[in-house]
């Protein structure tokens, strides 16, 4: 597993305590699982995603990620409607390991309240929190 110094935590996304990330892209928010979480889980074998049109409140469970030895539930960082789902993960769940912030994205959301983004952690805050936890 990676040392904290090896983690990739880009500054163009915001983070949750549960290690989802969210990136504002115009009027929509792209969402995925951060480098720390994918590294902890190990080889990801399956991602269960919601359907477009589903709506969730901030903090509601919207996806499940499975590795060989663990399962984790993912909670939506901002409230809103799912407008796109990364269906390539069905066939290639390893993308979450290979490219957590790129091809391994989970869903796109039309946010109900864009200001919720501001309440998520920056990469600096996220890193500090991880250091504190170790």
């Amino acid at each position, binding site marked *: 597993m990676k040392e904290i110094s090896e983690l990739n935590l880009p500054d163009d996304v915001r983070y949750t305590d549960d290690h989802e990330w969210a990136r504002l892209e115009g009027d929509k928010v792209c969402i995925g699982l951060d480098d720390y979480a994918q590294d902890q889980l190990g080889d990801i074998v*399956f991602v269960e995603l919601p359907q477009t049109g589903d709506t969730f409140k901030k903090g509601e469970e919207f996806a499940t990620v*499975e590795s*060989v*030895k663990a*399962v984790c539930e993912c909670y939506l960082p901002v409230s809103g409607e799912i407008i796109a789902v990364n269906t390539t993960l069905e066939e290639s769940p390893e993308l979450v390991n290979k490219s957590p912030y790129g091809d391994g994205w989970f869903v796109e959301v039309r946010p109900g309240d864009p200001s919720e983004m501001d309440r998520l952690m920056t990469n600096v805050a996220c890193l500090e929190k991880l250091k504190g936890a170790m």
Partner: protein
Amino acid sequence: MLYLPHTSDEISSMLQVVGVNDIDDLFSTVPDDCRLKSDLNLPEALTEWELNNHMEALSKSMAVSPEYRVFLGAGSYEHYIPASVSYLLSRSEFVTSYTPYQPEMSQGTLQAIYEYQTLTAQLLGMEIATASHYDGATALAESLLMAIRITKRKKVAVSSLIHPLYRQVVRTYFEPTGFEIVELGYLENGMTDIAGLDDMDDLAAVAIQSPNFFGCIENLRAAGEKAHDRKALFIASFTEALAYGLLKSPGAQGADIVCGEGQSLGIPRSFGGPALGMLASRKKYMRSLPGRLVGKTKDLDGKRGFVLTLATREQHIRREKATSNICTNNSLCALAAVMYMASLGGTGIRELAGLNHDKAEYLKKGLKKAGCKIAFKTPTFNEFVVEFPAGFEATCERLMEKNIVPGLSLTPYYPELADHYLLCVTETKSRDDMDALVMEVQS
């Protein structure tokens, strides 16, 4: 004692290593008020030879062939089991191993179960099958719960011609859940009345057994279409796996999940258990399947090997969110089934299934000639319902005194069917056996 190898010298030297004087000291963490103060009140230990005598005496009081001719089926069937199957099944490498958590040391069990899953899927006309369940009844309960998970609906429709004891198990499983069970009645021809489905909404699943409890072959295709019209999953259940050597498979008729009892495939009846719960489904429901699955993969050198897979659905990882609480399958029973299916082969299973059907037809004809009424017109496999003249109970008692068990009275399960009996004929019943039954019924 044969199974306790320690000599008193060894015990002393082990106690020395542990650093205590007496084995009692090792139990120092058990508080006094938790202890049993006297000896267990159990019968005195028997020698191996005394045990043999005792068990043989118990065994001899049971009504089994060849002393008895038993025409009972109803979910437990008398079929011949080749000596080769019993012999292979007694190999201690299979018998005394655990669930194959360490695949490198368990490839035998794993490949055998993979073969079982493959042959089961073929027999039932489905894409995938689980590594087995406790019995047909629990496989049905698990299938219904699976459909509820998939569809996120809370109501299931279950044919009243599914084995009554299976339905009782389903009711027990469902009692604390708040899920609703609707029973579908039956028609005069001995088939499930599926017309009622037209008015039902929000169904997670429709479950039909074929051949059903009356032995009648159901129109699975029609039931499946109706289920799918209502966006419900269609579950086909069975108690006699051998029937699918002859009949159209449930998969070929639109079933989404197929579940039932595989005891017929090389497993002794043993008063009802251990049995073999078979469960198969379409591939798209793979991750919702309850219980164990074996998958094919490769080792570090690229050699073929097998592992337990999709384990994250299971309780040891998912705990309360698991697809079920099942920890084991009935592995050894699955092995018996695959050995039996392999021994029969495609050619053999067809012939054996055909013979079961033909023998049952022979007895039907004989009983008809003797003045009994065949209760339902629908074609059957190896079981059928006979309406005997009123007061058949007395005849039944007389037959039992002559070492014939003529069948199962349906009255306790279907009170409206007085004097109706469910009879079963397998390949183990000779023409003479059947002629004898007919003659006794007549006299």
